[in-house]
């Protein structure tokens, strides 16, 4: 659980760099690094990354949309076949979640590929180092 939270926070903090102008795809190296360095089961790693990306992008978009009273999301929604603002927020959140989730997963499985766990490939619990 501790590593789950650690992964979540790392991805969240890394993704937040976007606020200071770091491009959107910085979620990828951040997620890869978190997956590589912080040991989790693949499922947990993915979940932690997904949740961090999903919440970060979703809540950020929601906050901007809320302050904007939905003026812009109504217009952008029309641009994409009439999507509502909740749909746009959900898509935004999903994009953030999927990118971060797969990045953590790739990092984690990449580590396994580079340093095969001693107890065999299907070990349920793995400790760091």
């Amino acid at each position, binding site marked *: 659980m501790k590593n789950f939270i650690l992964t979540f926070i790392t991805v969240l903090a890394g993704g937040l760099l*976007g*606020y200071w*102008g*770091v*491009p*959107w*795809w910085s979620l*990828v190296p951040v997620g890869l690094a978190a997956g590589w360095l912080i040991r989790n089961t*693949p499922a947990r790693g*993915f979940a932690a990354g997904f949740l961090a990306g999903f919440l970060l*992008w979703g809540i*950020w*978009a929601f906050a*901007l*949309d809320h*302050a*904007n*009273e939905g*003026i*812009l*999301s109504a*217009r*952008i*929604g*029309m*641009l994409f076949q009439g999507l509502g603002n909740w749909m746009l927020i959900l*898509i*935004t959140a999903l*994009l*953030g979640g*999927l*990118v971060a989730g*797969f*990045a953590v*997963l*790739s990092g*984690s*499985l*990449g580590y*396994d*590929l580079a340093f*095969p766990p001693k107890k065999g*490939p299907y070990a349920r619990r793995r400790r760091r180092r």
Partner: protein
Amino acid sequence: MRLIRFLFAFLPLAGLVWALSVPLKAGDKTLPALGRFFSPFSGFWQNAEPANGRNAVPLQAKLPALKGPVEVVWDDMMVPHIFAGDPNDAAMVQGYIHASHRLFQMDIVSRQTAGRLSEVIGPRTLEADRLIRRRGLPWAVERNMKSLQQSPRTMQLLEAYAAGVNAYIDQLNPATLPLEYKLMNFEPEHWSPERTLFVVANMIDALNNRDNDLAATNSLAVFGRDTFNYLYPSWNAKQTPIIPDTGQWADIQPLVRPETVSGQTAPGSAPPERSELSPNRDLNGSNNWAVAGSRTRSGAPILCNDTHLPLRLPHVWYVQQIQTPQFNSYGIVVPGVPLMAIGFNNDMAWGFTNCSHEVADWYRLQWTDGGKTTYLLDGQPRKAELRVEEIRVKGAPAVRDTVRYTDWGPVVYDQPDHPLHDCAYRYVAHDPMKPESLYEFLNISSARNYDDYRKAIPGLEALSQNVAFASRNGAIALTVQGKFPVRQNGQGRFVQDGTAWANNWAGYIPASQLPAMRNPSRGFVYSANQHSTPPTYPYYYLGNFDHSRGRRIYQRLENMRDITIDSMKSIQLDNYSQRAADGLHALLRRVKREQLNDSEKKWLSALEQWDARYQPDQIAPSLFEMWFDSTYFHTWDEMENLRRQKTAVLYPEHWRFCELLESDSASVFFDELSTPQREEAGDIVTAGFHKMAARAEKMPSDSLQWHTFKGFVIKHLAMLDAFSRLDVSVGGSRNSPNAISTNHGPTWRMIVEMGAPIRALGVYPGGQSGNPGSRYYDNFVDAWARGDYFDLVFLSQSDEQNPRILARQTFTPGS
């Protein structure tokens, strides 16, 4: 095994990142890469401005090149009130503010006139770029630049403005970039004085670029002189010209030369669009008037102006107040240009309508060689200058296009099948401005009296305008201002012979002989794009004049006493159409009632009860439009046949059509060519009625209501429906004083009462911010559609207290 597991994670990741990184294609448009566009840190969400208005005011407050601090006060309309110690400082802050609200618009408008849209949009704008370059607009701007460079104070002003725009551009980052750039995937380019001139040229061109020379030439050749004069008289006896003849022109000895007219037809390869040839297409027109204190309840003169242009979002105008030690003025500007266009100051108010004179002519050349490098002029061969236009195209190789320039001007069309392909284009907008012109016009903001006003308006140069004036001391005036060619009688109506220099214009009508009036005894001056003068004015001129609004406004003003601001609103919002009143009278007089069945009589009675007002919820205006149109085009089947044979000919003007219906119902033109029997007006009018009724029967009654039938829209500049307003319902018609047609209408309704204090009202169908994510993007639209106005906040000093002030900021020098 581990590799496979890894790839199960990594391949989706790589695929996702790739899919989110490439720009999408949808038809010929490109959509942005979705990752960047959806990221809440850099994408469109960042353009979602807080609706409480916090970010609507630009935040940066440092402009290194300022000479002193500049105070900016923002009111609840998001109008900036700029208080500067120096006109160049005011220009710089204007540049920053215009850019912060309207950068994309400025960029696109300037690119459009420079023929540089394809650079950022791609091949689909290539033809538009090519044509504007071949019409010589960038060439003319180059020449204007050279001229303006001789005026240091003009250049300082324009440089200061550009520095302000560029300071804004330089602090942009991927997150704060205006939304359209994110969508269309390009970046703003630095501003320069030249780009301001492109915006000026765009306005001049929008108002001056019209001619019917080719269609008139063909009409003359097909119909002969007598029929030509019968079909297309230029003077309408019912017209109320802008400036009446009071004997003021008796002393003018104009240049008169014998008429030279060439009349060969010029068939084209493609059938010309009917709408291009009808003289009744949407005109960029306007209304303005000023009433003297003798007619107003308050005793102070009132000036009104509403400018009719294509309606777009972001809106064509930006509203602002500027105060410097030289002036304190409030009004509208075109973003991209630091000069107040229309407005008022403490002492006077001024407003524009378009003169609608024709100031572009065509000259047929005679080449002396197959390569078209030399042409004949007065018996001598002259070499054409070649100018190579290089048009860069996004996603495609650059296109090089050679344009031949003659002594007349450029040869616009090089396609051999274009009817004007060997013709040179003489256009008033080609003549370089005087070095001080822009600066001269800037001074209208500081005009205190009639003399100052007359001194400032020649600075308009090729932008020919009817300029109304009202001052606090009670004077009213109207001047027809512009560069009007001194023409031979009839010159410019037809394509002319380009082998004789004698066919050139003999200069421009001198300023002192331009039609003007000051403090007339009738107590008002007005203009609505009608003829400038009666035919007794000694100079010949031609143009596309409106025959409806002016007559209506004249009647309203003439009968109005005890005028208040509300009575002025009632004229600006008047949906009555003189054209419809005349047309309806003529049609009802000729229709054969005995040939109408019972359900048709229902439509007839709706029309008989109609008062020629285009009210949004009525069906009679829609019925009338259908009836008038089908009768009109049915009558002019002669023109329609020629059009199908690819010969462009003129359609008679609506007022002339009504006149013929009334007074010459047996005219041969009412005879339908395709039938053996002889028709007269009544038959065609009745046939038109049947057609209208058949169409109306098929339509649900709500789509027959005028506001739906008209299909009013305010489109976004890049034609994106999502950023447009498609839901606005309004009355009016292009021939009503409230001249709202499908996508065209009053872009700035202004009423200024020059009392103490000044009371000013204004509204436009848009909003100050160009950001579709701002609540200030379209917040005036509904008020405009309802016919509401805003009281304009005109501050006398920067620290004045006013409950409508939203924010204050100070721009300071230093970095």
